[in-house]
């Protein structure tokens, strides 16, 4: 099975990346200026208590030994303990994960169809008014600060008009949909233009390619050529960008979550950074990185399935 073999090779290539990720997240705490033990025990702890805990945590051992014990802990699912919440980091992450996942799924569900429709309209009406309008809106969307838009929308639609709740996660699927509508829309406002510009350029580029002329020479209809040849060939670059953007979203949903008080990973991250809750920062960073790796891998597998030229 050549596909499985290629997949195996691809997974092997991930090993150095995973090692690198673990080193970076390990160093993140090591390099931090504060003393995590001090933070854990507070300023009034005695020197003996600090030394004792230091030994207990293994902070007196050489860096490389500490790294290996960190990796072995991580492999056993132990990401350390939150100083602020006094809970294991892994269970904190699991608690805060669902709203973020829901939000990202929501954003993708809004953005992808909208992007496809708008890009097709824009490309097919190239240099006519619908195209100009869509492109101008896209530039505007890219330049709006997401957190600002989120604030303005929460004031307008949430407070003024009262259509949507302005904070929280809600209950049940419909409740989530309702509560996360404004956050999802504000994020999409920024995501759609990026994807749109990419897909539009790809569509125009492909529709000027030689095989389109060749298809015309066979008497095939324009609609058919667009659907069967141009669109299929244009999807790949945009798919790759979508992968990058989902990874980006995992991180940039932070601000929107704060504004709408969504109890997601972003909220957790910011509170950890502000409270210098190092193990939460470390655990989250590691978690984000692995999530990104998985997203990228999925996109690569999808590309290989669509395009026979792409090898994993």
């Amino acid at each position, binding site marked *: 099975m050549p596909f499985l073999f290629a997949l195996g*090779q691809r997974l*092997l*290539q991930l090993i*150095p990346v995973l090692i690198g990720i673990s080193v970076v997240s390990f160093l993140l705490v090591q390099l931090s200026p504060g003393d995590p033990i001090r933070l854990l025990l507070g300023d009034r702890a005695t020197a003996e208590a600090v030394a004792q805990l230091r030994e207990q945590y293994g902070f007196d051992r050489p860096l490389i030994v500490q790294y290996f014990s960190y990796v072995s802990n991580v492999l056993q699912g132990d990401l350390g303990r939150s100083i602020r919440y006094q809970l294991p980091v892994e269970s904190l992450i699991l608690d805060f994960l669902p709203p973020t996942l829901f939000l990202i799924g929501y954003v993708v569900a809004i953005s992808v169809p909208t992007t496809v429709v708008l890009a097709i309209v824009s490309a097919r009406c190239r240099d006519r008014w619908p195209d100009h309008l869509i492109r101008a809106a896209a530039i505007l969307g890219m330049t709006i600060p997401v957190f600002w838009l989120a604030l303005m929308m929460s004031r307008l639609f949430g407070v003024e008009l009262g259509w949507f709740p302005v904070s929280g996660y809600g209950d049940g699927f419909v409740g989530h949909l309702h509560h996360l509508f404004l956050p999802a829309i504000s994020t999409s406002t920024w995501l759609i233009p990026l994807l749109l510009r990419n897909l539009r350029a790809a569509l125009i580029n492909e529709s000027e*390619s*030689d*095989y389109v*002329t*060749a*298809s*015309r*020479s*066979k*008497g*095939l*209809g324009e609609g*058919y050529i667009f659907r*069967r*040849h141009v669109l*299929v*060939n244009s999807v790949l670059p945009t798919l790759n960008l979508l992968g990058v953007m989902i990874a980006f979203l995992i991180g940039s949903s932070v601000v929107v979550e704060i504004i709408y008080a969504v109890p997601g990973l972003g909220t957790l991250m910011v509170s950890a950074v502000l409270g210098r809750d190092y193990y939460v920062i470390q655990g989250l960073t590691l978690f984000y990185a692995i999530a990104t790796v998985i997203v990228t891998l999925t996109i690569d597998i999808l590309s290989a399935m*669509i*395009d*026979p*030229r792409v090898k994993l």
Partner: protein
Amino acid sequence: MIARPKARLLHVENLSIAFGSMPVVKNVSFALDEGEILGLVGESGSGKSITCRSLLGLLPRNASVGGKIGFEGRDLLGLSSEEMRTIRGRDISMVFQNPSSHLDPLMTLGGHVMEPLRHHFGQTSKEARQNAIDVLRSVQINEPERRVDAYPHELSGGMKQRGMIGSATASRPRLLLADEPTTALDVTVQARILELMRELNRSHGLSIVFVSHDLAVVAELCHRVVVMRHGEIVEEGPAREILRSPRHEYTKLLIDSQPSSLALPPIVRKHKAETPLIEVERLSITYSKPSVLPGIRKDAVCALQEASLTVEAGESLGIVGESGSGKSTIARAIMRLVEPSGGEIRFRGRNIATIRGAELAVYRRKVQMVFQNPFDSLNPRMRIVETIAEPMVRHGLATRAQALERARGLMRQVELPLELADRKPRQLSGGQCQRVGIARALALDPEVLIADEVTSALDVTIQAQILRLLQRLRSERHLTVIYISHDLSVVRKFCDRIAVFRAARLVELGSAEAVFERPQESYTRLLLESAPRFERTLELAGASDE
């Protein structure tokens, strides 16, 4: 079908095409009978491809077309785009130059052939697939049952072109438009594609409009020829009449520019040295792709296998072969642009792999190279005169001012107008760029000049000029030349000795005369037979005349 009296199939009258306010085709009229193959010949900018595309209404949106294109009693220019669509791919089909870009990379070969069948005849995918296999067989694709599911990137160039011909002829059109269909292909592949087209013409009575820059190919394939220049027809008539006794000056120029009829002044070589200048001994070169993890996916490509040859001072050695033969690799090895994996190259008895520093700089001055692609071989951001002057400055042979002055002298030597000195490469024509490349190589006053396919991207009349220039420089400067080409007729004209390469191996080496007249290897014979040569065509034509 074949025995039917000849009926007029296509009648083009006063065809004019303009892009915006720029006319590209002016008042062109010609006709094509059923079962006839018509050649449309011209150099770049002659409007031949535009004319061909206009027959199917495939011009870009900003083109305006006037005149009349009569096909089976209808004026194609008067048809709605809907009506035109029913003709395209059903009555008139087209084959393009570059099969790689004209096939959708995400569609199988079978898919391409099935498209017109399903579209024009409403065949089910099952019927169409069966028919596609038959079509692929008819265009001589081996194992059509397997190839029908192959994607374009899995096929060779020749195979892709057969597939495209298959896709164009699947619906049994009356007329096939072929726009430089063999230009990107190797000669042996070209010969088989031409044979295929001849076969389609003979067995199905398919009429063909064959667009080409190559007079020799047209001479071999076509019944009648239309010669175009600057958007106008300069001459038209039966192929062998035009080729044997051209009436128009331009046609004469085209014929005289053919390498085989090119007159190059003879070279008087100085006394023959006893030791060869360059010795290549058992040279092997392998390219290996770097792998991410050691031991995994080590693809090694063998580009050259144990090739041995010598180059005498003052001679001109021709290296011929098709793509992937290793002919360019050996040039790059002599230039020390690639590292040999085995064997060695000696210059005046010294292994070039071991020289360093100042000695290497001296070697670089002695051996220089001119490249294939005129636009690619010049830094687009540097002015012409800078490009030529730079080597002298870097080698410390002149101050900047002196170098710029000498560069102008070199421009004169390669017959470049001095007003081009401050231009950028993009503002020059292909032939001019190639002259800049030659001037740059001469800037260091080399003994050996390696010319790698230097004329393959140029029009034939420009090629003739460049060849004359090279010949002149060769005799003036007593240059030793290594001339690499896929074009046998050029090599024969230009070279004293010839080395034939195939699939990374040297297969034959001998004097030009010996290789051409008494080839020892079957591959050399195949190459010679495949290469279109129009004196031979004329001889054959003359013989069948009586």
